[in-house]
Every structure is written in structure tokens, then in C-alpha cells.
């Protein structure tokens, strides 16, 4: 990419030595894929501070609310981002969320396995389906769009069938009791820094419950593990992509798979592993959700695959693969979460709010593409 861009830039600056490519620090910053999403984050926060500043959106519980939603998007966006950079899509993410959740609830509640066994088995099943997705894409040469679209339906159907066949219901409750005291469940469903929040509440910095059995407890009582997972996955994804040889392979596999093969990159393995990682992320999402809410339902995660892809695209990744960043995807998830929740706080009529959301998303993507094109000279 950088070679082509040097050539494009050359004609305007003919008096310079064409062998030396000078990139100003400003330009260097501008060609990063995150730029558009950083602008987007600033824009979105200014916007909501203006129209919803006093609505409770920026109270401690309001902040936790949109942070949790953004963290949810981020968890699946990290997987989708790496897979998209590797040149493939996964449309089965949403169905995978519902499926993994039901597997966990079925194993732990209906069949009485310990929660940690249920969680590990769910991860193993999900990742083998991720492997199968990748294997089919590689083997058949079909677009991943088609293969994973098939799994969108296969998994959703299986989820509903499994739930009804075994329990005659589509929502399986009682997970909270089954997860009580389980070491692995605590990693997905607990909260950290509880003491800090009690202290903050005692100082009067955050509100307390005034009635009921929780009277006197702070309204925000810790950082949910969901947010911790999102941060860990973002850091992991970012380091993997930018600091390791495997990261280069991901870019190479998505940029030009054939050229990458000639230089010895195991493209097939990279792609299959990214499909497995996407399934892993979907299962993290599902596990956190199941533990937090205490039940699994067959209709969980509908349309989440698109929300993941949207976050990644806002974050500056190319739909065609080979270009993008995990930090960008995380910022995309933040924008998505803040906009989605912020419009509620702003009191926007709910049927109109998706129109508004769509316009903002479109704007973000156009802005991104425009900035990138004008800077890199790419068409």
C-alpha cells in the first residue's frame, strides 16, 4: 500500500528526489485507520453532552450503562475485526451467541453439570463450529458470506430445537443458582473494585439505593467483568495484530492471499484460526450474558453479527480485507454503544431513533473512507 501511495503522491512534487519518501508526522497520524473513529468519538460525545448532558446519561450509572453496551459490541467486534482483516466475514456470530448460551444453560441447569464444565464445553463446541466455518470456506472456495450465512440459520434453528426438544421452553432459567460459587462463572459474571465504589458512595460521589433490600448500597457497585473482558480482548487483539509475526500474516492473508502463499504465509491456517477466534469472542459474549442475566434464550443475539461488522467498519477497516485496526474497531463499538444508548437518554422517539442511528453510521463510514482516500490517494 505504501509503495503505491508514494507513486501517486510523486507527480505533484517533481522537484524532489523520488527515491526518498517523506512522510510528515501529521500525515503519518492521518493514514492510521483509527483516525475516523477518533473523530467520531469526539463528535458523538460533544453531541450527547449538548442534547443529553443533564438526562442522567453522564451520571455514574448512566456511564456504566453505555459502557457495558459498548463493551458488548467491542467483544464481538474484536473477533470480527481480525477476521475481516484476514479477508473473511462471519455472519453466524449472532446465532452463535444464542447457541452458546443455550448450551451452557442446558448443560448446567437441565443436565446438572458443574458450571465450569458447561462453560468449557460451550467454548469447545463453539470453536469447533468456528473451525468448521473456516474449513468449509477454504475447502469449497465459496465466499465466507454464504457459508456463514448458512450457519446463521443452522445455529439459530438448532438452538430453538435443542431448547424446545429438551425442556419444552425457549428460555432456560435458573443459571444464576447453578453458577453460585463457581470459579469460572465468577470470571465472566462478577464485578471488580466493589470496595472502591462503596467508598465513593460513602463520599457522596455516587448515589445510593434509597429503598428495598439494597437500601444504602451504591447504585453502581463495581466494574462488570464484561468490561474487563472487552479491554483484555482489545489489548490482546491489538498486540497480536501489530506486534507479532502472526499479525502480519493476518494482514497478508486478507490483502492478497495468493501473494501471501508465495511468500510462505499459511493463509488457510490463519483464516481458520480467525474463524475460531470469532467464535471464541461470541462465546465470551454469550457466557457473560448468561451469567449476568441468569437465563439463556433461543432468540438472544439476533442481528449482533451486523452490529459487530458495523463497529469494525466505523473503526476504519476495509470490507475487502487487509486493512484495519483493533483499536479502531473498539472505538467503533464505543461510538455505536454511546449513540444507541444516548438517543434513549435524549428522549428520541424510539421508532425514529434507528433512522438517526443509521444516518450517524453512514456519516461515520463516509467520513472514514473520505479521509483515508484523500490521504492515501487510494481509489
Amino acid at each position: 500500500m505504501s509503495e503505491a501511495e508514494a507513486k501517486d503522491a510523486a507527480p505533484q512534487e517533481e522537484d524532489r528526489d523520488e527515491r526518498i519518501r517523506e512522510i510528515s508526522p501529521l500525515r503519518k497520524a492521518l493514514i492510521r485507520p483509527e483516525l475516523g473513529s477518533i473523530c467520531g468519538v469526539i463528535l458523538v460525545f460533544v453531541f450527547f453532552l449538548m442534547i443529553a448532558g443533564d438526562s442522567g446519561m453522564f451520571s455514574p450509572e448512566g456511564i456504566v450503562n453505555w459502557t457495558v453496551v459498548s463493551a458488548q459490541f467491542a467483544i464481538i467486534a474484536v473477533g470480527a475485526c481480525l477476521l475481516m482483516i484476514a479477508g473473511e466475514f462471519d455472519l453466524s456470530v449472532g446465532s452463535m451467541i444464542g447457541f452458546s448460551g443455550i448450551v451452557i444453560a442446558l448443560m448446567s441447569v437441565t443436565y446438572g453439570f458443574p458450571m465450569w464444565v458447561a462453560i468449557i464445553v460451550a467454548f469447545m463446541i463453539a470453536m469447533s463450529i468456528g473451525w468448521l466455518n473456516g474449513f468449509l470456506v477454504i475447502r469449497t472456495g465459496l465466499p465466507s458470506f454464504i457459508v456463514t450465512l448458512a450457519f446463521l440459520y443452522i445455529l439459530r434453528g438448532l438452538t430453538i430445537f435443542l431448547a424446545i426438544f429438551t425442556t419444552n421452553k425457549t428460555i432456560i432459567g435458573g443459571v444464576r443458582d447453578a453458577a453460585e460459587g463457581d470459579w469460572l462463572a465468577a470470571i465472566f459474571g462478577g464485578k471488580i473494585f466493589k470496595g472502591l465504589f462503596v467508598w465513593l458512595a460513602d463520599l457522596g460521589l455516587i448515589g445510593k439505593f434509597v429503598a428495598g433490600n439494597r437500601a444504602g448500597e451504591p447504585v453502581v457497585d463495581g466494574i462488570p467483568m464484561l468490561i474487563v473482558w472487552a479491554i483484555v480482548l482489545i489489548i490482546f487483539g491489538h498486540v497480536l495484530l501489530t506486534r507479532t509475526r502472526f499479525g502480519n500474516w493476518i494482514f497478508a492473508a486478507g490483502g492478497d492471499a495468493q501473494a501471501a502463499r508465495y511468500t510462505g504465509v499459511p493463509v488457510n491456517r490463519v483464516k481458520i484460526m480467525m474463524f475460531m477466534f470469532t467464535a471464541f469472542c461470541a462465546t465470551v459474549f454469550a457466557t457473560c450474558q448468561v451469567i449476568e442475566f441468569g437465563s439463556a434464550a433461543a432468540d438472544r443475539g439476533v442481528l449482533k453479527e451486523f452490529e459487530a461488522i458495523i463497529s469494525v467498519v466505523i473503526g476504519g477497516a476495509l470490507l475487502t480485507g487487509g486493512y484495519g485496526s483493533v483499536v479502531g474497531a473498539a472505538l467503533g463499538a464505543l461510538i455505536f454503544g454511546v449513540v444507541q444508548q444516548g438517543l434513549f437518554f435524549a428522549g428520541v422517539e424510539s421508532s425514529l431513533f434507528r433512522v438517526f442511528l443509521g444516518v450517524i453510521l453512514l456519516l461515520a463510514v463516509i467520513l472514514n473512507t473520505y479521509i483515508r482516500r484523500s490521504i492515501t490517494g487510494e481509489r
Partner: protein
Amino acid sequence: MKKLLRGLVAGVFAAGSIFAMATTASAEGERIVLISHAPDSDSWWNTIKNGLAMAGEHVGAEVEYRNPATGDIADMARIIEQTAASNPHGIITTLADPDVLSGPISNAVAKGIPVIIINSGTPEQAADVGALMYIGQPEYDAGLAAGQRAKRDGIGSFLCVNHVVSNPVVGERCRGFADGLGVELGDSMIDSGQDPAEIKNRVKAFLSANPDTEAVLTLGPTSADPTIEALKENGMAGNIYFGTFDLGTEIVKGIKDGTIQWGIDQQPFLQAYLPVVVLANYNRFGVLPGNNINSGPGFVTKDALAKVEEFAGEYR
């Protein structure tokens, strides 16, 4: 390109400020938020919206309607948390899945926000989360009443067309109906999906595979309308016993021409209207009815259809 961009930016901010104006226009009175579990595509909830808006006008309160776009109950839990964070004067919500929703709802109650449960859930569950009251139609009981009525009419087997198989509360209607008839639910309940053509064909397929089915039960306009079509096409309209939950234009027509024996009206208008009135008066004067309110079941038959017909889909 630049022009397009500038236009888009201007458009977004203009749209935003219009929304902001629209919502602050009626800043007088309490702010009451109704949260449902219904996906955007569910037309039945339009009556709820109409009832909510009318109640807001009548008592001079500012009302808002919120729902998870895809009907995902976990998303709904976030909406409740968020609504609580915005400190409204009252929350009206359904209790579609107590495992998921009871936490956020009882937190809202603990913050000192009065909450009323409508539509889904039971009076006991409403009390458990600390709600002021439950307003709605107990689903199983409504199904049971319908089943007992069908039994008196000599019915012994049935097909239940379930278009929301993912919501167990709605499925309770089929279970109640089967128990009312005194038969096993077994394979009588089919997952029809939401698409009208699919529903129609599945009903036809089931009835030709099980020709001795004596009755059809649909769970709302989404499944009732295509079922009417199916029965007209296979010639069973008027011959097979047909009952349905909820009302709508096509259902009213069906009751009128004899295709449908009865519709069960849970009166969604009341489920939205009454809690606003209750919450407004509770906020202003501290008065509160001493009990839960059953908005249904009411059987709607051929007699006394005029009012129903006039307002079907709007206030009925």
C-alpha cells in the same frame, strides 16, 4: 464529496435538534417511560403506544415508549437500567423473563422509582420485584378459560399456531388451552414463524396431515390473519372451530363472517392507559388502588362487535 459530507453533518444535527425539541415540548408534568419486550415488527403494540399517548395527554404527563429493536430481552434489561439512570417519575414495564429483568427492575424500585408491571408476568412476580401493581391478563389463565369454553362447545383436539415460539409466556396460552380441553399439548403447537406466507402454508400442511383436528387457536393477529386465509383456501373456513388471542381488523372481520368463533381481548389499551393514570396520581397525591388490575380476558364474539370493529388495531 465535500458538499455531501457537509450536507450530511448538517442533516444529522438538524434531525437531532428536531428530536430534542419534540421531546422537551411537553416538559410539564411527570416523565413516565413504558418499556416493552416487543420487537419493532410487532404491530399489536401499536395499541399500547396509542393508549400511552392518550393517557399522557389526558393526565398531562410526558410519556415515552421504549423497546428492544429485535425483541432481545437482554437488550431490554439494558433499556431498563438506562431508564432508571435517567430518573423518570415512573416506569411501566413488562416482565417477559423474570431471570433477566427482575434485577434491573428491582434496582429501579430501590432507587425510589415507582414501577408498574404490565402485560407479561404474574401478580406474584410483580410483587417480588417490588412493583406497585400488575396490570394485564394472566396468560395461562386466559388460555385455560378459552380451553374450557372450547370443551363446552364439544372440542377434543386442536392446532395451536405459535408465531412467537421464543417467548414462553405466549406459549403459556397454548398450554392453558390444552389443559382447559383436558388433552396433552404434545405436537399440537407448531412454530409458525412470522412470515404470513409461511404461516399460511404450515397451517394448511398441518391440517391436511391431521384431518381430524377439530379446532385452531392462534396467538395474535400475526398468526391469525394468514390462518384465516389458509382456512378459506382449503375450504375449512366456518367449519373448523377457530379461536384467537387479541384483536385486529382481519380478526374482527373473521368473527363477523363466522370464520372465527371468538377473540380474546386482553385490552392492551387499558394496559398502557391505566398505569399512566395510576402513576400520575401516585406521584401527585400519593393515592394508589389497593389491588392488581386484570385487563382481560374478555371474549369478543359476534354480538356487540360495533365498537370493537370501529377501534380494532387502534384502541382495541
